[in-house]
């Protein structure tokens, strides 16, 4: 905590001597007279020097806070992943216990780990693509002004701003096989023979055009929820970008007789591509680590056991801190590997396009 106090002390210093940079050793603009052990040969500080110091001083509180609440815990987790640690004995444990790879052996060897990783990938990819596709459609539909657009736009952001616990319960009740409105209407209007348990069916038989196949219903429902909840995010960014596209570009294409789909494909899409790429990365990262949505909807059952929920289970049901940490670490490494792949293959291309 002694570190955290330091920047707080420097701030009043800077304020008490007007004209000074607020840097820790902030000196007067023309203050070669002031003694400072740090300065060599009494050279007056250049403007860049002072800016450097001010910058470091300003950024220190932020860095310290992020360090304490984010970086330290992450490093600690890495250490924990290589140790035998249970929640009961972690309190008195030193930082460096007995090193072992047992946790990783447990994680990779435990039943369901690989399917869980695969589920996480499907869930993440499905939700990312779904939310961006729906967001794009929404942005295109709401692009031109119409009466009541502000209202529609505002209402479209509701799924994103509403608390996840509340909306998850609404979905749960609406999809309930006993008293859910979806099953009631499905039976009435679509002639469903029996209620469908959306959130607790690992697979569901669907027949389409005489073909029968199984779909992982609970997983699809969770992806649907995620798509619904996060398409406003993509919509916001895409709409902002769409409205910044110069009108002239589209006008020119229109005069040349380009149809709407052609204008979208050859004029708008190239303009949107950088934002779409950014959204893909952002949404992928966010969804990959997502815990609340799946946990609240299915509790990780019925084929929706994403890794984040497994980490939570290891932590709270088995109190196996080491294994939980190892699992979380594996998740983070997989994510970084995927991002690395993405930037190797697509990063350059996007840069060239933009």
């Amino acid at each position: 905590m002694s570190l955290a106090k330091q920047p707080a002390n420097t701030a009043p210093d800077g304020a008490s001597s007007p004209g000074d940079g607020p840097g820790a050793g902030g000196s007067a603009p023309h203050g070669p007279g002031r003694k400072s052990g740090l300065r060599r040969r009494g050279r007056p500080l250049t403007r860049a020097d002072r800016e450097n110091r001010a910058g470091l001083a300003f950024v220190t509180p932020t860095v310290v806070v992020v360090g304490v609440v984010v970086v330290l815990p992450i490093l600690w987790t890495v250490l924990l992943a290589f140790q035998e640690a249970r929640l009961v004995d972690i309190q008195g444990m030193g930082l460096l216990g007995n090193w072992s790879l047992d946790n990783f052996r447990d994680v990779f060897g435990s039943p369901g780990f690989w399917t869980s990783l695969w589920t996480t990938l499907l869930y993440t990819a499905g939700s990312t693509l779904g939310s961006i596709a729906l967001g794009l459609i929404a942005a295109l539909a709401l692009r031109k002004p119409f009466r009541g657009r502000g209202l529609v736009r505002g209402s479209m952001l509701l799924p994103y701003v509403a608390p996840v616990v509340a909306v998850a319960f609404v979905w749960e009740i609406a999809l309930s096989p006993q008293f859910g409105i979806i099953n009631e209407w499905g039976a009435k209007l679509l002639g469903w023979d029996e209620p469908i348990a959306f959130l607790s069916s690992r697979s569901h038989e669907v027949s389409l055009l005489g073909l029968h196949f199984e779909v992982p219903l609970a997983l699809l429902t969770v992806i649907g929820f995620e798509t619904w909840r996060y398409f406003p995010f993509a919509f916001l960014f895409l709409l902002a970008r769409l409205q910044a596209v110069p009108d002239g570009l589209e006008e020119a294409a229109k005069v040349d007789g380009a149809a709407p789909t052609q204008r979208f494909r050859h004029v708008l899409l190239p303009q949107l591509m950088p934002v779409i790429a950014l959204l893909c990365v952002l949404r992928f990262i966010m969804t990959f680590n997502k815990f609340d949505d799946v946990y609240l909807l299915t509790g990780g059952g019925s084929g929706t056991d994403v890794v984040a929920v497994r980490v939570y289970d290891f932590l709270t049901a088995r109190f196996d801190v080491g294994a939980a940490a190892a699992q979380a670490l594996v998740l983070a490494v997989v994510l970084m590997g995927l991002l690395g792949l993405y930037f190797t293959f697509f990063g350059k291309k996007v840069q060239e396009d933009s």
Partner: protein
Amino acid sequence: MSRASIPMSRAQFEERLFGVLRWVVIAFLAVITLAPFYYMLLLSVKPIDALLLDPGRLWVSAQEFTLSTYEEVLKPTSEGGQGFLGMLSNSALASIGAVVLTMLAAIPGSYAVSRLRFFGGRHLSALFLAVYLFPATLLAVPLFVMFARMGLQGSLVGLAIVYIAQTVPVSIYMMRNYFATIPYSIEEAAALDGCSRLQTIRKVVLPLAAPSLMATGLYIFMIAWNEFLFALLFLAATPENWTVSLGLQQLANGIEVSKTVLMAGSVVLTIPVVVLFLAAERLLTEGLTSGADKS
């Protein structure tokens, strides 16, 4: 009517098709975004029997209409209710605490990153965002142990501190973009008038950035208010400190509570955030996406 015989060009055909489709899409979007919230509100004022009797009905009749669900949710536990009133104030405390702490931590940093050239400055903002690469569950274990040692487990203060980890990166991102739009010359003018850098920031930059600060603060509030995982991990053992999100989830998990009461709880949880959002929608959406339009 002779024009009808001329075959429509692709452009004309698509113009018409999308002219119609656009309205279909808008209607569809309005339904999928509003219907769940209407459903939530509807169920919260129905007696449970009415729901079980006719689950598909989209309205509530006058003699069915009841507010007893809200009464049950809001009354303190000592009077047989669910104590959501107390949880509301817990949520508010934790969220406001998170806003204040995050702003204190993020304002100087985002100013430095956007304005000052200093050693390592350019990499720092990317580094802050890299925080989101790590699953929140990864942070949870060590934070849990750290707080247990400091005696902060189960306390709202601890929770507010944890929320900093969730909100600092996005706050820096939002404010940095805004600070970058304030012209240098304004700061230079203030410096010429004899302001120190701190004075310039306090008297010139921050007032100019007020809209962005407001947007960022509101966004942090909403993140903290809606947060669930950390509340679950840190507060589950101390019911008197439960936030509304946690209380609602525990309510659903607990002994038979009727779904209509659950929906009343959901409404109570949702209303503050939605009201706040609607009041400041423009501010928020612009704060979040500023910079996205000039990539």
